[in-house]
């Protein structure tokens, strides 16, 4: 099944929260992502699923500037940010929640949030912290606890709260439920990620748990072998046998 991708001109439309155009990226000399084009419209929750080794994480990391882009383009809110360093990308309104090392372990919960809001003036900072605490009230009870002492679910919540501090237009999450027990995972996706979306931000989430993330997505891309295999709304994909195939078929030409 061929990928249904938006027309190439879409990347230039300033209306998109995010767009990548034929992105080729990877580590060292070998690309892991081979010419991927995706887009996220404002307010959308878009997920990327696919078997292991399909390049999902690498794609995200290339978008936020942590991994090298070999060719192609990345635009955020219409601006070309290809090859920008990660701090610059954070400054234009992209919040990134990595899969591991997602909090500052020796710092307290409050200090973590403060770091998330480093670029803000002190009054704004206080307001934003209040705001984030209203989205994740449990954090309010743990403000003086060291982040390293939190449980898995609490850490993820803090990581997401930290990413929200600069009121990003786009929040990017890399396998937020990895290493979490299944019940917790469902809670994180259904609850936390949904709250992110409710703030008005666009959300791009990579997930291993395809069924679970499909439930909360507006649109889903399926990646395999570093290439886009499929795209569609959750309903259509769930009915498609090709969807299931792409997970168990290894994503390579049979």
């Amino acid at each position, binding site marked *: 099944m061929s990928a249904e991708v938006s027309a190439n001109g879409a990347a230039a439309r300033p209306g998109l929260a995010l767009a990548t155009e034929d992105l080729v990226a990877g580590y060292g000399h070998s690309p892991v992502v081979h010419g991927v084009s995706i887009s996220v419209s404002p307010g959308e929750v878009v997920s990327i699923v696919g078997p292991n*080794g399909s390049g999902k994480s690498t794609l995200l990391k290339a978008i936020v500037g942590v991994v090298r882009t070999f060719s192609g383009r990345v635009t955020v809110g219409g601006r070309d940010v290809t090859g920008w360093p990660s701090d610059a990308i954070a400054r234009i309104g992209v919040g990134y929640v990595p899969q591991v090392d997602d909090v500052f372990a020796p710092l307290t919960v409050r200090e973590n949030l403060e770091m998330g809001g480093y670029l803000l003036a002190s009054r704004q900072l206080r307001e934003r912290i209040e705001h984030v605490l209203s989205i994740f009230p449990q954090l309010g009870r743990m403000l003086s606890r060291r982040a390293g002492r939190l449980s898995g679910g609490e850490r993820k919540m803090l990581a997401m709260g930290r990413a929200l501090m600069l009121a990003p237009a786009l929040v990017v999450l890399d396998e937020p439920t990895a290493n979490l027990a*299944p019940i917790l995972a469902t809670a994180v996706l259904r609850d936390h990620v949904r709250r992110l979306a409710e703030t008005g931000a666009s959300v791009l989430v990579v997930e291993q*748990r*395809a069924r679970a993330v499909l439930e909360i997505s507006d649109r889903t891309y399926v990646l395999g072998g570093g290439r886009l295999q499929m795209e569609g709304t959750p309903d259509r994909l769930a009915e498609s046998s090709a969807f299931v195939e792409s997970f168990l078929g*290894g994503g*390579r*030409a049979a």
Partner: protein
Amino acid sequence: MVYYITTILVYAGVDAMACLGLSQQFGIAGVTNFGFIIFQAAGAYTAGVLSLPPDSANGGFQSYVLGWNLPFPLPWIGAAIVGALVSVPFAGVVGRRLRGDFAAVALLVTAVMFNLLVTNFVPLFNGAAGLSLVPAPLQSAVNPQSGAYQWGYGAAAILLALGVYWFVNRITESPYGRTLRAMRDNDAVADSLGKDLRALRTSSLVIGGAIAGLSGGVLVGFINLWDPQAWGYAETVVLFAAVIIGGSGNHRGAMLGALLVPVAFEEATRYIPPVAGNPNLVPALQWVVIGLLIVAFLWFRPQGVLPERRRRLATRAPSADAEAALPNPAAGGLDAPAGGLDAPAGGLDALAPPVDRGRLPHAAGGSAVPERTAAPILQCRDLVREFDGVRVVDGVSMAFERGRLTGIIGPNGAGKSTVLAMLAGTLEPTDGRVLLDGEDITGLPAFRRARRGLVRTFQLASEFKRLTVLENLLSAIPDQRGETLLGAVRGRRFWGAQEREAIERAQAMLERFGLLGIADRYAGDLSGGQRRLVEIMRALMAQPRVLLLDEPMAGVHPRLAHQIGMSLVSLCQEGMTIVMVEHELSIMDEFCDPVFVLAEGRVLASGTMAQLRATEEVVEAYLVG
């Protein structure tokens, strides 16, 4: 004038010896021993007190121990022995799994402290004054002031240095030397291959210590005094500078460095006239320049003037057809035309019976095996592994049949790699048992299991980068004669035959996988796919009965993955049992039967891929993640 030249000769010899000792430790074994100078100082002191008369003589103005007034060459022999002995406690510091720079700093501090102790402890070392009036060797026979004696001494120093060079070369160009270099490149992997890291580091330190001690003895016999100030922190840095500039890992480079730095450089500055009003200027600037040279060389030419030479051991060249099948390294991937697989001698197909390249009939593995013994060769029962209260593996029981290529798959976090690690012995189970041939091996560490024929590969890059491909393969062979220090000392006559045989075997393996052409390339220069193959070949060199592969196809081009799969199948047909953890499900399709599916730390199902795809739970596991 005579004195001047002979002095240079003696210093050149002494410095060359010291640099060789250091080069062997630092350049070959990868031990950054900032305490090195202590060995030389200890040797010099020993030679001094062995050759001096009792300290009451000469008016009793200096105090020291022994004073046995021994004749030449005993003081020098004693110097070497003490140098070696003093190095032994250092092995304790170096051996620990400590960050490289932390360990180096610990040794540096040790050197500084030793210097402090020595300059202050009068009864033993006569404090800061040192020892003077140390007798020159053979001074009763020949007048030490005579030209003949001076030339003789100079010649002796040079000859000894050349002797040390010959010795150090002998032990470096041997399986022992290769093992040291493997330890230098990646000690964790060397350890898992069964190399005794502690013994290796200790032996390396002892050799270096003996050489340093000897050089100290030679020096002290010539200048007739032992001055502890001459062996300070700055002198250690000079020796390191010499080895780095000359070329670490290359013994000729070490000697060159000795000539360039302690000798030539320090001599050259002697000719610069002292600046009026600041007589210390030139000596101080000398040190500044040495510092600059260290930084400059580490930046512009870290390998030194004479870099480490590549060891070319291959005796065979690949045949023309096999060459055509070689992967194209420049492309990084493998664009070998399918036709390459049909090449005769050296091609992969020649070894396997004709197989349908599409789907393997499921019984293929079974029918070619002469007898199907009922008992599985490897099994695990109720394996459990907990990390921080989380059960990553929660009661896994699997049995692997002889001569089969079994696959283990499952979504991320299912515990596949953890199970493999417990089977291999690199990770201890929290509970449960592992049995090899019916025998309980749960308590055995990895390298012991390797000796019984159970070998694993690693997921992450674990080749020895600065060893050639051939050397990488050779390093995996257990129980090589030339691998111990004594074996190396006994020379090629002792270990040569076994080595030649090993090289033949390694070359045959390379040929089988179509990689004979890169036998003499540094493993670190290979493409990802080639390194994978080297990893597998290295595991095979240990002649395992059971091979555990941890995601061997990760990041590998489909064509190469296919080639590897075919080779694995042919190995199984020859009786080897292979267990493979993989994500690449198409590989499972083609080559593995049976396949176990793990999810959330438990075995979910097993069967052929076709059967598994049809199983609802398996499909769900992958989608639910």
